[in-house]
């Protein structure tokens, strides 16, 4: 018996991966037995698999998101969301921590890339008419995910706590004053104060690192599940 076969027939492997013992030699069983591969549709039209039909844009946006989660988690080990320490901790990451400059820049550039890819992904979906029934609800989820992505960028923008971020957020929250009826309340909710202060920094930090990721992961799961169920639209 080959080493691979002996491994796949072992009790440990069998307890982790469901299905028949020769799972690895049966591609369809691999697809059904693995949570990650299971995210793919069971059947697809060959024409829809052409690279130039989707350009892999949604997947690229997801890759950006994964990079952002990993690098963001690493940044959280050093970043301190306090008005006295935020800027210094950002400099510390960039200048002192091993590979810190790389992690921070990777986070920054992936954030830019994610917005671009989400946007181009939406253009592709629009151009191929993939928003039409039965996929119209998934299009709506996509809109929500676009807004979440933009809000991610907006909240992350304040965190370095330098002049650029302070005045950038200042302009952003003052725009809320023009929103009828709920504008003032919304502004107070975001700032936690009448001006941008420590309460604002901690709020933006919590939005950026907890609230938005939770909603994004939930909506992403739903988004992918709908792609799996509805299938990829055929050209």
């Amino acid at each position, binding site marked *: 018996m080959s080493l691979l076969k002996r491994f796949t027939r072992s009790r440990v492997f069998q307890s982790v991966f469901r299905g028949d013992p020769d799972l690895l030699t049966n591609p369809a069983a691999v697809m059904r037995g693995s949570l990650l591969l299971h995210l793919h549709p069971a059947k697809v039209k060959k024409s829809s698999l052409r690279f130039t039909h989707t350009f892999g844009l949604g997947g690229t946006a997801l890759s950006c998101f994964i990079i952002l989660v990993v690098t963001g988690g*690493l940044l959280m080990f050093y970043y301190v969301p306090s008005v006295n320490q935020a800027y210094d901790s950002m400099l510390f990451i960039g200048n002192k921590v*091993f590979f*810190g400059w790389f992690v921070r820049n990777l986070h920054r550039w992936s954030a830019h890339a994610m917005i671009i890819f989400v946007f181009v992904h939406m253009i592709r979906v629009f151009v191929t008419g993939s928003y039409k029934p039965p996929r119209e609800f998934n299009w709506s989820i996509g809109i929500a995910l676009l807004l979440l992505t933009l809000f991610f960028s907006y909240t992350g923008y304040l965190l370095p706590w330098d002049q650029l971020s302070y005045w950038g957020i200042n302009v952003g929250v003052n725009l809320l004053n023009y929103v009828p009826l709920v504008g003032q309340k919304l502004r107070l909710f975001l700032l936690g104060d009448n001006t941008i202060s420590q309460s604002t920094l901690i709020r933006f930090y919590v939005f950026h690192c907890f609230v938005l990721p939770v909603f994004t992961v939930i909506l992403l799961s739903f988004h992918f599940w709908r792609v799996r169920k509805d299938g990829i639209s055929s050209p």
Partner: protein
Amino acid sequence: MESGRGSKTCSGPCQGYGGQQISRRGFLWAGLGSLLAFVSGSFVAAYYYLFPPDVEDLSKVVDVGSPTQFPVGSVRYIPEKRFFIVHDARGFAAISGICTHLGCTVEWFKVPKRFECPCHGSFFASDGTLLGGPAPRPLDCYEILYQNDRLVVNTGRRVAKDYRCKV
């Protein structure tokens, strides 16, 4: 597309370095290997990233100042390295402020003239002798030297309880 399969010879893009032919399977294994190398490299980088640089000055030798700042009978706390400078009739001593029970910082009380630990109530005499409480042994004493008109404590060197620095 049909090039690179089996032992078929081919011209053009599948002709590898030095005229060797790379099979599709070989190419995929090489790709998987590179991916694994990249991922494990990232883990190594992340490992080093997670250990902070220059956490604190690990030098154990502290200059606590001129002896005139410590009159006879005084007990003064040096917070940076958590020890006390005790100046009694016999000279200067550096007594560790770290309780030998579970590491809280002891406090000096002038009235019963003793160190007391706020956590579990161990108490020690001014020379570090254990007087009571759960602590298993007396407070540590550090080497203290008189150099160029300054008192210098080395917290890396422990000395006996009756060690004194005379100026």
